[in-house]
């Protein structure tokens, strides 16, 4: 096992910069998830770690070894691909053993390792089948198995679950997490699905336009996004963003969005000071919007009046699409006793301590 360090990694395809000065460290035995929307450079970064893509500049270390000029086969890594990439002309047993065979492992050792991987993944019955005779989930297992038998220093996963149906994906997520614990391996996992990132990662690395936006444990990234992109990317449904102006009034700072004005918590004051009168973006997560509580302190200044647009029932919770003048907001709230109708007036409270304010020009988080 080993850690993986990227130093100032750059990848340019002609004039397009796919990965822009990426530096990060994945610790030994860590489950690291590289997440971002498509085209953010995460897969390119992974392929550079694997040695499948030449590096424009920068350095990659696996363990203590600089691997920049090493062939993929010498990097002691295994990779699981989005399309599984099983060899169609070999059966499952041959697929699993191929990497060992090419490395000239003794036959007995190959058999033992293939058995072991088949045990872990429960694919004993499939060993003599060809890949085309397998379902998507089974293929995915075999692809995992092919990585496991090698016992590599680092596992690389390139969107391995994106071709599976939703139900299977949830099951495989849990399985990969279990596998990580069992193998105690360093895993770098690339995905565009923030749910996968949140549920599986020890640490999340969020990328956008080739650059690293933020690194942290899932809850930290969720609670303290570094910028507007991260705030909008992590969390589902996505955070609501509203253009607003910061205004200082006698008692406190207010976030003035025209149609409504809410009071910022005192804890925000120091950070908001330099932005007096400036244009900002106000961010509030759907789960931090609740139906107005009449018993609450009226001076809290966190209530706004909106109109319901669409109401979607999930069961215990509902999605409410709200309009407040020109602004639209999504709220995720507990299902009220009285059914909400579409087009009705609704007062909602915002959990102000959980809200965020972003610089409109730089998109950086102010608070």
């Amino acid at each position, binding site marked *: 096992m080993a850690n993986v360090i990227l130093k100032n990694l750059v990848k340019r395809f002609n004039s397009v910069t796919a990965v822009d000065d990426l530096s990060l460290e994945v610790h030994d035995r860590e489950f690291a998830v590289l997440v971002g929307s498509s085209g953010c450079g995460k897969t390119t970064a992974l392929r550079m770690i694997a040695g499948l893509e030449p590096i424009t500049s920068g350095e990659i270390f696996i363990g203590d070894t600089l691997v920049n000029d090493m062939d993929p*086969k010498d990097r002691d890594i295994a*990779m699981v*691909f989005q399309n599984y990439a099983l*060899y*169609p002309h070999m059966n499952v047993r041959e697929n699993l053993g191929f*990497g060992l065979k090419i490395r000239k492992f003794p036959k007995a050792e190959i058999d033992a390792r293939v058995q072991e991987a088949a045990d872990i993944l429960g694919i004993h019955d499939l060993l003599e089948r060809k890949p085309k005779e397998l379902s998507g989930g089974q293929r995915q297992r075999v692809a995992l198995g092919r990585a496991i038998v*090698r016992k590599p220093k680092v596992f690389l996963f390139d969107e391995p679950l994106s071709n599976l149906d939703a139900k299977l994906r949830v099951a495989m997520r849990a399985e990969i997490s279990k596998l990580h614990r069992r193998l105690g391996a360093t895993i770098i996992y690339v995905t565009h699905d923030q749910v996968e990132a949140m549920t599986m990662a020890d640490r999340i690395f969020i990328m956008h336009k080739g650059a690293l936006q933020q690194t942290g444990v899932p809850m930290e990234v969720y609670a303290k996004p570094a910028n507007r992109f991260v705030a909008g990317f992590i969390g589902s449904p996505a955070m609501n963003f509203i253009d607003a102006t910061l205004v200082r009034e006698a008692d406190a700072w207010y976030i003035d969005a025209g149609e409504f004005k809410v009071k910022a918590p005192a804890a925000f004051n120091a950070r908001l000071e330099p932005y007096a009168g400036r244009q900002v973006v106000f961010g509030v997560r759907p789960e931090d919007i609740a139906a107005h509580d009449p018993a609450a302190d009226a001076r809290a200044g966190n209530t706004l009046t909106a109109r319901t647009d669409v109401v979607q029932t999930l069961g215990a919770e509902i999605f409410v699409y709200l309009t407040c003048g020109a602004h639209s907001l999504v709220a995720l709230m507990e299902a009220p006793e009285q059914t909400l109708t579409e087009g009705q007036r609704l007062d909602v409270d915002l959990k102000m301590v959980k809200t965020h304010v972003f610089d409109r020009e730089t998109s950086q988080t102010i608070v």
Partner: protein
Amino acid sequence: MAKNRTAKALKTILFYAGAIALCAPPLFVFVWMIMTGLKTGVQNISYPPEFIFMPTLENFRAVFEQYNFFHYLMNSLIIATLATAISLVLGLPAAYSIAKYRQGKIGILILIARMTPFVSYLLPWYIIFRYLKLIDSYSALTVTHLIITMPMVIWLMVSFFESMPGELEDAAMIDGCSRWQSFLLIVLPLMRNGIATSAIMAFIFSWNQFLFSLILSGPQTKTVPVAVYNFISYGKIDWAGIGAAATLIVLPVSIFAFFVRKSIVQGLTMGALKD
């Protein structure tokens, strides 16, 4: 419903009418050739042509006995096999690198060599091979046939290689293969259909090649198309012999093609659609 069915029937009829119209001319020539081989010399020049007659195998016997046809068949077989084998050995890696590293320009260059009228090669080749004392040698004929078979293999195989998902090779490289190993152990086994198609096409084109053999071969290395041509002499044209010989030439490739027709069809439509 009834209207629908009529339309469907009409469609079927039109389809088969079209198919027959397309297939009839070449089939007619084919049948005519076989019939010529089975008739006697007199029957062949009678007018109107006889369609019902007592077939004879005399011409086939004559072809082998008088003209030493077996020797020419072996010549053709040796040259076509060598040319096909060499163009596979050299052409497969070439096609792979054209597909993989997007060497379209090299691909075009190869195509130009193929499209240049063959007649323009003949004189220089004749002079060169005469200096090298290679006229009437298998090597001269095999090498010249490569200009037909190699572009065939390369151009068919490029589209095959392009249709192969790159992730398979990535997986092989990570599993421990070198470029060559991944080419030999992963890529080539998956290209069986394509290799079979291009090999058959290359073989047929070499087998049928007339012009190069006419100029560069001699008594020892004469191939079958040239041998048949020699049935035409100043005095007479041995139609029956030509028919029998032509049937013998076409027979092996036809039988061969019949058995592998599935992979040929698949091979020739490959690359049009990615699955």
